């Protein structure tokens, strides 16, 4: 039976709320919110809030910088930002980190279209191209470079040439970050693959590589090499495929005409994937492992080799008692090639005074000068003065795979392409299924064609 006083209870509650002085409560609440806001107006935070609310500009000496670095990269980037602040003052920089991948580029795009972009933003080299095509970036002139004591020859050739678009410098590369081969020293020792000086035996030949896989497999009693391919992972499968694909001489690009045509060499596609499937069937490569587990196999000696981007160095170094090394992915076909991308600095399109432009360049220069801090996270410096320094050559195991940068192959330019893009997602998912032996390479290629057709047939919105 329902309580007899229900209605009264409700009314009483409303009443008591009223008598609790609703107006007083609201006023107090408003006050509590506004006071620190107003008080904070003299401080950095207050100014930021005010600029957000009223669209006022931050004082021009404050440089706004956006990036997408989390984890170890994030920590190191913060250290580099601190380096800039130390030189130019505590208020000189407002740095913001956003979630990695598509959401980040969406924010950069929307902010630039909305005329509120950051002064400097980080972009993957492969993603800077679509931004440039959308007229969202300002070209960087040689005069800009010279104003902070830089010239094109200060940068590694591969990333510099790769960023040049329509005869313009659209991005300043900070690094090259290729996929590399991690190896577990203990396992490789037992498999007889370590030289006297502790280096991994050169495996640059298909037969030699396969016999190494066989030897490691005997040591581990299971897989020899892990490649993550499930749990939402699509990028690694793509990186591995693109590496081996480009090790074939004279192979055609996957996409042409900025993503309007699919020009993948179907024979090579089949060849590379048949080989991968044969490794899986022989038990040398895992069938289905997610990113973290694939990695832990190599860490714990359940596998000898692990293919992943060099940034995993931070994780590997944090594993207690793990003895590991890193080398460029061996050349199994005609020529050395390694899938890679670069982190670059770009200048989103906005109205700038010459002073602001100069400050943005000074910021980029400051970051480049701290390339060694950045290199500790595994990335190969694009700034030659850092890459050629004795300090970098002394960094181990970083210097062991630095040569991979010379053979870096970037993703084909496409309006839906680049690192973490729709293209990588679609193709990588199918390659993952190939590795799981769930579909044949032929079916995978058909699925890729079907799913990409929307993008191939759509005029670029950029």
């Amino acid at each position: 039976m329902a309580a007899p006083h229900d209605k009264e209870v409700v009314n009483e509650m409303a009443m008591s709320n009223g008598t609790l002085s609703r107006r007083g409560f609201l006023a107090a609440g408003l006050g509590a919110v506004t006071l620190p806001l107003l008080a904070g107006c003299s401080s950095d935070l207050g100014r930021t809030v005010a600029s957000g609310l009223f669209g006022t500009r931050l004082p021009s000496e404050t440089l706004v910088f956006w990036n997408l670095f989390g984890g170890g990269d994030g920590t190191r980037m913060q250290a580099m930002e601190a380096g800039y602040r130390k030189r130019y003052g505590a208020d000189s920089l407002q740095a913001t980190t956003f979630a990695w991948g598509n959401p980040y580029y969406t924010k950069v795009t929307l902010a630039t279209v909305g005329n509120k972009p950051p002064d400097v933003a980080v972009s993957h080299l492969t993603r800077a191209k679509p931004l440039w095509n959308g007229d969202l970036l300002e070209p960087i002139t040689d005069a800009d470079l010279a104003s902070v004591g830089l010239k094109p020859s200060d940068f590694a050739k591969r990333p510099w040439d790769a960023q040049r678009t329509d005869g313009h410098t659209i991005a300043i590369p900070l690094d090259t970050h290729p996929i590399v081969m991690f190896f577990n020293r203990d396992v490789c020792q037992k498999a007889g693959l370590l030289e006297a000086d502790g280096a991994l035996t050169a495996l640059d030949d298909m037969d030699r590589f396969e016999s190494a896989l066989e030897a490691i497999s005997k040591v581990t009693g299971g897989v020899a090499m892990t490649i993550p391919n499930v749990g939402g992972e699509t990028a690694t499968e793509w990186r591995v495929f693109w590496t081996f694909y480009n090790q074939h001489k004279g192979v055609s690009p996957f996409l042409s005409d900025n993503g309007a045509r699919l020009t993948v060499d179907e024979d090579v596609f089949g060849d590379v994937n048949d080989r991968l499937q044969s490794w899986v069937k022989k038990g040398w490569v895992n069938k289905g492992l997610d990113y973290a587990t694939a990695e832990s196999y190599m860490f714990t000696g359940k596998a000898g080799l692990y293919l992943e981007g060099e940034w995993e160095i931070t994780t590997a170094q944090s594993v207690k008692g793990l003895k590991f090394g890193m080398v460029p992915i061996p050349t199994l076909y005609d020529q050395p090639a390694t899938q890679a991308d670069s982190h670059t600095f770009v200048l989103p399109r906005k109205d700038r005074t010459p002073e602001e432009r100069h400050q943005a360049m000074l910021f980029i220069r400051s970051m480049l000068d701290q390339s060694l801090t950045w290199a500790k996270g595994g990335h190969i410096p694009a700034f030659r003065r850092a890459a050629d320094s004795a300090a970098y050559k002394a960094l181990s195991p970083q210097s062991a795979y630095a040569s991979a940068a010379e053979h870096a192959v970037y993703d084909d330019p496409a309006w839906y392409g680049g690192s973490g893009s729709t293209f990588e997602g679609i193709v990588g998912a199918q390659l993952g299924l190939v590795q799981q032996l769930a579909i044949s390479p032929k079916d995978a290629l058909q699925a890729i064609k079907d799913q990409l057709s929307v993008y191939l047939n759509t005029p670029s919105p950029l």
Partner: protein
Amino acid sequence: MTTATIAATTPLAARGTRHANTASPMQRNDSRSAWLFIAPFGVFYLAFLLGPTLYMFVMSFFNTSLVHSGLGTFAGFANYAEMLSRPDFWSSLWHTLQFTLYTTPPLVILAFVFAVLTNRLNRGQWFFRLAFFLPFILPSATISLIWVFVFTPSTGLWPLVETWFGVTPGSGVLSSPNTAMIGVAIATVWWTLGFNFVLYLAGLQDIPRELYEAAAVDGASTWAQIRYITIPMLGRTTTLVVLLQIIASLKIFDQVYLMTSGGPGISTQVSLQLITNTAFTDNRLGAGSAASVLLFIVIIVIAVIRQLVDRSAARKEA
């Protein structure tokens, strides 16, 4: 509380006005000042709802780009044809319906059950009202964080409970394509139950006490009273709750984006997410608009079907 009461009585009130309108049409002057009073709201409605909606309809026939001004080249029905032939469009639509099917029944039935139970309490009712409504005032980001924590593989609350019952925790509710949507649905039910609960509670308190007293005198059991008094008397509230719930569920975006971001794969990608991705990640406002219009049509069709079913049910009763 007040909101709930107003919302629950709206259908009754609306009926009344309709009659009043036809009986005595407004005077010219009255109408002019009425428009004046509506104007402040009307301007916002026009600028931020009707205007953009019309623009969306127009854009859906063009290759409009996010980064270039203007509508772009004329596309005719190409954007629609593309969406209708895309498997991920259909799968996202299915995921949206799936979510609606998972959340609407529990949100209506549980809210009703809890409201009836709470209404029977003599003391401490405030506690239950508060407990059920509290999650509703939390922002979607907060509830997503809470439930991502609950569902964390091996260390979260859910796997912990599973181990108590001797079940070996798997890779996590949100990591499997088969269970991810259920996980999101559970979080949503916990989050929004309070709103329907309050609507039902308000409806319950509008049922005249005499009916129950008379029934008790006639010897009706508690169950019979619920079956023959409470449920029919709450008919209007149920109609409202179901309609609001279906529409809210079809507009699902926040929780999915925050908890699984559409994954694993695209197994929980819902329509609004596909629309955002097309319009703002692929920079294709035109194609995104076309998908939006299609979702709009689906929502209208479902609302109309529900209305027709309801009307025929009412006719049968009468």
